[in-house]
């Protein structure tokens, strides 16, 4: 396959950036978008051009490192699929593909396609945990949890932290990310003692860096973990309940 790539190049967070056009003549349909970048980078380096910086690690869709805007779509054309699992099979021979960093005010560009998503960790640090000191846990089966509940908690817990929900959202809202964690822990008995405080502080932390949700649903289409928009409703409910309570 012959693929033309228009790639965002930017050397430092403060420098100006722009699209640069490259072609790869020997692409194959089995290649993932990241393998296409590997192929291109090898050529660039052989021509003494600095390669395109991009993030990736596991290359099997679970680490959440990768993620770029592909023709304006977070992660790429296949829905609910991370960039590392987007293959050239989805494109026609001769296609032009535009790759840009997943832009958002809370995601400054570090270099080329790399962005800084540490704002997401700040939300977790605000309350996305259960405060059980090591060694203090009761016997695991002493608290039964209905299978259905555990399964639904797992649905929420599947978030890979790639941040594509924010990039896909016209408001750059992180509510899908926040809702997933709040909802997971609100479902489980272990999450109850800190339930109200957690919802309040995580929502407050999110509001510092991210926009509000207006129910567009673009996050759901981009999410590689298939997180449901129900978690946003759950989040709103939890925050509302928390506002009535002092705990």
């Amino acid at each position, binding site marked *: 396959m012959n693929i033309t790539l228009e790639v965002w190049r930017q050397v430092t967070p403060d420098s100006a950036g722009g699209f640069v056009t490259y072609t790869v003549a020997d692409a194959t349909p089995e290649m993932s978008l990241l393998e296409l970048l590997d192929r291109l980078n090898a050529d660039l380096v052989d021509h003494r051009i600095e390669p395109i910086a991009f993030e990736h690690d*596991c290359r*099997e869709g679970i680490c959440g490192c990768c993620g770029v805007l592909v023709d304006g779509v977070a992660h790429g054309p296949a829905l609910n699929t991370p960039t590392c699992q987007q293959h050239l099979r989805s494109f026609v021979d001769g296609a032009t593909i535009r790759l840009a960093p997943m832009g958002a005010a809370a995601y400054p560009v570090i270099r080329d396609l790399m962005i800084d*998503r540490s704002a997401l960790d700040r939300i977790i640090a605000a309350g996305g945990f259960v405060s*059980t*000191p090591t060694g203090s846990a009761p016997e695991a089966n002493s608290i039964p949890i209905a*299978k259905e509940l555990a399964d639904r908690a*797992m649905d929420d817990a599947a978030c890979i932290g790639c941040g594509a929900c924010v990039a896909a959202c016209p408001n750059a809202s992180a509510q899908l990310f926040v809702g997933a964690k709040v909802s997971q822990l609100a479902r489980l008995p272990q999450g109850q003692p800190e339930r109200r405080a957690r919802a309040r502080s995580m929502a407050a932390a999110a509001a510092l860096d991210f926009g509000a949700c207006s129910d567009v649903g673009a996050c759901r289409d981009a999410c590689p973990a298939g997180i449901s928009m129900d978690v946003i409703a759950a989040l709103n409910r939890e925050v509302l309940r928390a506002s009535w309570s002092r705990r």
Partner: protein
Amino acid sequence: MTVADELIEAVGVEGRISSPADAFREIGEPLAVDRPEGPVDRAWANHLLGLELVNPANRRTFTVIVVGTGLAGAGCAATLGELGYNVDVFTYHDSSRRAHSVAAQGGINAAKAYKADGDSVERFFRDTVRGGDFRARETDAHRMAELSVRLIDHFVALGTPFAREYGGGLATRSFGGVQVSRTFYARSQTGQQVQLAGHQALQRQVAAGTCHLHTRSEVLDIIVHEGVAVGVVTRDLVTGAITPHTAHAVVLATGGYANVYYTSTLAKASNVTATWRAHRRGAMFANPSFVQFHPTALPIDGEWQSKSTLMSESLRNDGRVWVPTQPGDGRQPGDIPEHERDYYLERMYPAYGNLAPRDVSSRAAKLQLDAGRGVGPLRNGVYLDFADAIARLGNGVIDERYGNLFKLYEEATGENPRKRPMRIAPGPHFSMGGLWVDYDLMSSLPGLFVGGEASFAVHGANRLGANSLLSASADGWFVLPFTIANYLAPQLGSAPLPLDHPAVLATVAEATERIERLLHTGGATRPDVFHRQLGRILALQCGVTRSAEHLTAAITDIRTLREGFWNDVNVIGDGEHVNQELERAGRIADFLDLGELMCIDALDRDESCGAHFRVEHQTAAGEAQRDDDRWCSISAWEHDAAGGVPRRHSEPLEFSAIPLVTRSYR
């Protein structure tokens, strides 16, 4: 007489057998048996009683450096932070959530004995030691089995959504060649879920101000002062700044090194640098050649394929492994009639069939590939066929069991495993070798502790499925916090080495020089090219099977390759910005050194055991033949700072609870 011979005679450990390894190594003093007093099942409890404690009020005066935020690192850092220590945590990732532990699918073992299937801590311990082919310490394996029970409680308390039965209790499954059901799982994302538990606990301590997390910071070297590890030198992967950090103790929880083979089931960035640098500074490296090949990884189809992605072991529950009986058979799988197929695992191992253990299955596959019966465009895979299972159970049941995995396979290959058998191949997966540690998980470099896959730990010569999430977590949450306190206690009142101390400055200067050297060789070849070549050498000559002849050749090949690297590597860009080529080049440089030691170790260990299969040592039936008289020991390698050959020390292994027996899966 060679120097080695003299040493052999002096210490009298080896007898007088000359070895082809003589040219590449020396033999050092044997190590003492590393085993706490008393019976194995009381060892940890007794040992704990003897450990010194640090008064809660004094803890904040101690600083501990933890490198890595995987299961081992995050668990250790979060627990130390919670106890009140001052913790500096480093990861090259952009977040503590991303460590490669996140990719584990299958599950985590624990001897909860929730089913009436005869499981117990004792049985789990035995399975681990036997599975490791008697090349692990009994006491360490027993401790892991004991701690497994509390660990599951802990993860559940942290909100880990493990799978449940309808009655609300935790579900388990049987995994990796054992006959009891002790594997806890969270869908096919167990690693992710326990990793997130650690990440969240760590973030809680970050918010509390006890843990200081340095993301995108790569440890390039260990600072050693008067024979003690006192800090690390890091490079900021965004600005390139090289900075020293000192502390009262250093923990490396930096994961495994199977990426030395270039393609593996690991994440692309996984590397050996932190432990290799520690090795160069005095920490011994144990059993470097012990690497597990997973039999159900994806074959490499083309030059640009990123990795040999792991397809879950569970597929072998219903899939049948076969190859055409005729070498070079180019027909489509559907055109090959039943009588021209060899279901070789079922034929060779009737008792276990397609579920034979990892090392055994990988070796059997390699035999078929070597005989030219491989399938696929490059003839480097074997079939894993679901046709019979679908005929027996229907598409619905099979989809329910393996739908996710089929999707993953289809995404990766574009082929539908319901219509066409999957192609799988052995892929490098897990390093049983790693830095040598004592029962306290301290390396031979005092002050340097090692946890998780980075250490050589409990898995012996072969790791059982679902034991590694466990060992990494147990090390981090439930062992290191106790043993580190014991190390810190006598240091009360001392301060970490000042940052302007000559030992600190010298290490910073060396790390800086190395970066400069990499940037300015003036060469013309991309770093990756060397990595690929190294991978090829190792896969062919120090892979699923090994021989003295091949290993000797590989050592020479790697030495030549390394020389080529330092003369001709082209690292483009500079040291002041994000430079992923520079990051790669540094890691490859260390892999080149490690690769040589792996071959020397494999050549030296003149027996077969577990995943280490020397073709010279097999039974009449083609199974690994241990030599317990000469090799019932751990090989701990010492680096020669003067540039000489590495020195091997042997730590004898004693088995008091479990008699030495030969594994059999026939």
